[in-house]
């Protein structure tokens, strides 16, 4: 910003600030900032406009650091990006309006408008960058978190493991699930694996395809797969879509699946009588 523009803005500092605060307070009711007290809102507004004036006074370079720190704090507190963009739009409007009413001829020149435009644009760029940077970071962290809770294989008995699937299954997740599943089968020496889809909201042809592939891979490494947690609506979609799950056993609940798994590994759960003795029912030791 050239010195003429700077002097013009600074000489009307008080009226610009007052007008701006008034403008910004109009957004108060529309913003999703209802939970913030009036006092905090006013303080934040005042700080915002002070920072903006600091950039006018000192020009470029290290003074933007202050503005960035301010933006970072807003991001952390969860203020929306449109608070900042609207604030800046209001600032442009207020400044141009105030100064065009002023006496000096310079403030009516094209050059003057362009100076203000460039300055505001630069600040918008910096702050939007800050915001989107923090979003990218959040998305990345969420992806990592999702990856971590993406399907652990839990050994429940010797030779029997369970993999509960939760959430939507896309191709990338399916690949990860498959790798976890097979590594886990080897690690736990599982002979039977129960894949529990109780927590999978939608089973379409693609999800079914991934599950079928996983169970075929499990068979290749030398274990058996049982699909459990098939809710009525899932059973309906599977049949309506014409998906053939006939090749591997399915059970409605994890409990029934575990009973089948015990049978497959030639074991059963028996009750112990109160005296501490064991009642054998059709046992074959």
């Amino acid at each position, binding site marked *: 910003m050239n010195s003429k523009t700077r002097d013009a803005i600074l000489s009307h500092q008080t009226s610009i600030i007052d007008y701006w605060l008034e403008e910004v307070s109009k957004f108060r009711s529309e913003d999703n900032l209802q939970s913030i007290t009036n006092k905090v809102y006013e303080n934040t507004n005042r700080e915002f406009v002070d920072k903006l004036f600091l950039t006018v006074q000192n020009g470029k370079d290290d003074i933007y650091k202050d503005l960035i720190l301010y933006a970072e704090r807003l991001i952390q507190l969860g203020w929306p990006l449109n608070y900042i963009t609207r604030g800046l739009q209001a600032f442009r409007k207020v400044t141009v309006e105030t100064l065009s009413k002023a006496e000096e001829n310079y403030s009516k020149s094209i050059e003057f408008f362009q100076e203000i435009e460039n300055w505001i644009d630069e600040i918008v760029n910096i702050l939007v960058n800050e915001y989107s940077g923090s979003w990218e970071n959040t998305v990345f962290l969420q992806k990592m978190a999702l990856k971590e809770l993406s399907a652990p294989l839990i050994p429940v008995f010797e030779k029997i493991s369970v993999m509960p699937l939760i959430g939507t299954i896309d191709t990338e997740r399916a690949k990860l699930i*498959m*790798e976890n599943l*097979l*590594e886990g*089968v*080897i690690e736990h*020496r599982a*002979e039977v694996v129960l894949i529990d889809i109780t927590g999978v909201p939608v089973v379409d042809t693609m999800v079914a395809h991934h599950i079928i*592939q996983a169970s*075929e*891979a*499990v*068979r*290749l*490494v*030398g*274990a058996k797969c049982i699909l459990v947690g098939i809710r009525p609506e899932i059973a309906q979609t599977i049949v309506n879509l014409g998906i053939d799950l006939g090749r591997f056993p399915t059970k409605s609940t994890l409990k029934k699946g575990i009973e089948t798994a015990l049978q497959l590994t030639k074991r059963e759960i028996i009750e112990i009588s109160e005296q501490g003795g064991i009642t054998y029912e059709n046992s074959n030791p």
Partner: protein
Amino acid sequence: MRIPILKLHDYLLISVQVELDDQTALKFQEDVLNKIHEVGSRGVVIDLTSVEMIDSFIAKVLGDVVDMSNLMGAKVVLTGIQPAVAITLIDMGIVLDEVPTALDLEQGLDKLQSELEG
């Protein structure tokens, strides 16, 4: 290169420890069938723990060994297929449908025993 075939009572035990080229695979097929014929085995365990890759050709050879051995009255179990190998086969669309599998040599033997004797 030849893959050693061990005899244990009624069974043949084979652990594939070398990178399978086409000739070795075909030679292996022949050797297994000859050995079954020679000693009258009822079961064969082929352990693939050390095999890092199975392409469509080797998959076909293995599938054929299973079918041919069955014709000669010997059951075959493939054991120790690595996760990466299994995933690759599935990606390729090779399912090895009718082939019995087990986690390792020990479980493979158990499986043969329970199928042949139980």
